[in-house]
């Protein structure tokens, strides 16, 4: 019996030494999906609202997430959200302090989803217009760099746009509308920049009509429907994809924005003419004419020899 127990203990000890501890999170690759990436709400002062956000663990290992709400702003013309640190002073567009997401930390099983609830309480004296915050999802990591190097944190954020209903200023302006004044060939690139001087984000909707000198519409280009953060501008690029063009053309921008469909209009003219080809053609014609004249002269005998013959 003693011998048996000794053997059993030895076996168990050997097993413990050789069993490799399995990490609950494989740190070589992490994939997760957030749903939805954006949410927009039109709310009144004093209102509350709730919404679900979801994260999916796309890996074969459990992932522990921490989620938190931060304000964000946009500082460039692309529309890059800049997530502000938690201790940043509230700005005109802040909203994070009105929100909470629960639960704040959770583990998602492999290939599974987890839903959290966003709770929003709009203050009774909230400034009318736009307010913006982001729900940031951050998978946690137990790993630290052992030598010189970097620890890596990954985050993905769901953006929340709030529009507090009430009297606001809506003011969008076209600050740039241009195309190359003269081109030899198409395609012709038309650049537009729209600035938002209002109190809430806008999404201009419109078209650019390219017309010839007779006013006939040759092409209708659509302005991409993008949001413009208040106090920022957005650039748009439309390309008239046609190579062989000749003459004067006009581009008419007509768009609307805001609650009341306020207009945005602009018009430019530009010229396209394949002058090298035209020059080559003209030169060819001139050469042909000259050659034919030269040939004619050589074929007819000179006047004096004709007279001499006659005499």
């Amino acid at each position, binding site marked *: 019996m003693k011998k048996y127990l000794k053997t059993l203990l030895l076996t168990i000890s050997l097993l413990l030494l050789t069993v490799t501890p399995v990490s609950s999170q494989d740190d070589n690759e992490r994939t997760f*999906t957030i749903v939805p990436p954006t949410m927009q709400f039109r709310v009144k002062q004093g209102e509350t609202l709730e919404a679900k956000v979801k994260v999916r663990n796309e890996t074969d290992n459990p992932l522990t997430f921490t989620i938190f709400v931060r304000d964000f702003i946009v500082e460039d013309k692309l529309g890059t959200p800049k997530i502000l640190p938690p201790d940043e002073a509230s700005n005109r567009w802040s909203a994070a302090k009105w929100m909470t997401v629960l639960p704040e930390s959770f583990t998602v099983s492999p290939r599974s989803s987890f839903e959290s609830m966003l709770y929003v309480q709009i203050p009774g004296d909230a400034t009318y217009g736009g307010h913006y915050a982001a729900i940031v999802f951050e998978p946690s990591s137990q790993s630290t760099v052992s030598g010189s190097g970097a620890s890596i944190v990954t985050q993905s954020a769901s953006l929340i746009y709030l529009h507090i209903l009430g009297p606001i200023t809506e003011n969008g302006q076209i600050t740039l509308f241009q195309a190359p004044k003269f081109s030899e060939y198409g395609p012709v690139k038309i650049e537009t920049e729209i600035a938002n001087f209002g109190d809430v984000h806008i999404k201009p909707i419109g078209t650019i009509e390219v017309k010839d000198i007779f006013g006939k519409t040759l092409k209708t280009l659509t302005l991409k429907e993008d949001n413009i953060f208040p106090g920022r501008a957005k650039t748009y690029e439309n390309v008239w994809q046609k190579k062989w063009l000749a003459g004067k053309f006009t581009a008419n921008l007509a768009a609307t924005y805001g609650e009341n469909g306020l207009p945005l209009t602009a018009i430019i003219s530009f010229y396209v003419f394949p002058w090298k080809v035209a020059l080559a053609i003209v030169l060819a014609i001139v050469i042909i004419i000259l050659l034919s004249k030269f040939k004619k002269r050589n074929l007819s005998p000179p006047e004096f020899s004709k007279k001499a013959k006659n005499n």
Partner: protein
Amino acid sequence: MKSFLIKVFLFLLFFFPVKTAIAGNLTNVKDTITTSRPSAASPVSADAAAGLGAVSVYDNKSIYLASDSAQLVKTATNAFVQTGINVASQSAARTTVYFTTPLGASGAMAGADVLIVPITAKHTIVFKTETYISATGDLEIILSPGNSTNQASPSATGFSFNNLQTTDIAISGPTCSAWTVTASTGIIKCTSLSAVAANTTVTVTIGSTLPVLINPTKTATIGTADTWAVSLVTYDATGIELDRTKVKIGTIESVMVRATVEPTLTFTIAGIADLTQISTNNVGCTNPSPTQSTNTGITSTATVVDMGILSNGAISYAAQDLTISTNMSGGYVLTATSSGQLKNPATGYKIANAQGAVVGNDNPVPVAITSGAEAFGIHVCGYDVASATWGIRTTTANTKYALPSAAYYYTLASETTAVTSSKTTVVYGGTVSATTPPGLYTTVLTYVATPIF
């Protein structure tokens, strides 16, 4: 006298029996229609002004699908108010129909107009004769009649004939030299068949070149087919009925598949093994000269990039792949911030950023690293990376690095449309000078993937 008359009557009955045709059934009968979708016809429930892109209708189980060509009809006069209205969608409650074509000058009037989508179908009726049909016999096809006043409008009672012409009817098996069409009774009749032997397969196509007959509108519960009877009768040359049969065909709404596609953004980060050539790992990265490969001796993970021993005689490279997918039409943007310069916590010494002090987002611009000139930074490559900023990667000199700060981000990659598995490779480059103090240097880099605002 009476008994005599009875005898005469019985005699006549015996010797001159009334010829009765014992009608049989046509066999193997079927009517195949090219679409079983019911037509739609809903009365307008609220006035709609000209230019609007939607109209309110009563829910009578009519279904309008995207790309349907709808028409507004004045009920009183059967006149078309507007045709060619392109349907975009219908509300789940079936009480609003949305259009891509705006309503015309007349708009739509409640109580007066009906929104219709006539669905036409070709009918192919096949049957086998039971009894011989003599030459100039008749064939009668009887459909449930629809709207005979306005034949172009669908009906709840049967098939509107839509001004069916005799040239729209074809027959094979026998020939037919005269067709008649009566919309009010639903009868299509061949009044002069060629002789047809018994057991002959006959095929009649109604709408031989294009579908003509208009399917009835829906009356049964959603999901249950409406059934309609089609009768076929054959007659001999004297008009005596020979065979008759009735079949049923069903019209059922198209199965409306409702599915929700969630808006998503998926972010993957993965380490890259040691001795991996960057361009091999990401086809969006050009291969510079000399070839750039990870060389720290340590494989990166999703959460740690170990630069190994930094040397003043060479540049150490490590790398990770960041992959983004999103179905948001506005696309995505990938940015990076850091806790600060690569720093030795014990001594406080910081290794210089490749590009120098960060003074703003993406400012200053990334620059190349030179071996032996102390510097640390990240370089990115991939299809969504701005090569004008990060370098075109043909040589070491035009492969550029920068390290963001806590306050200012660097834009790594962006795309303004939905993308699938767009890969960006982050290359970590570090080198020290001969006077860089020894020690362990660390920082924390944060990568943030968001939709574009």
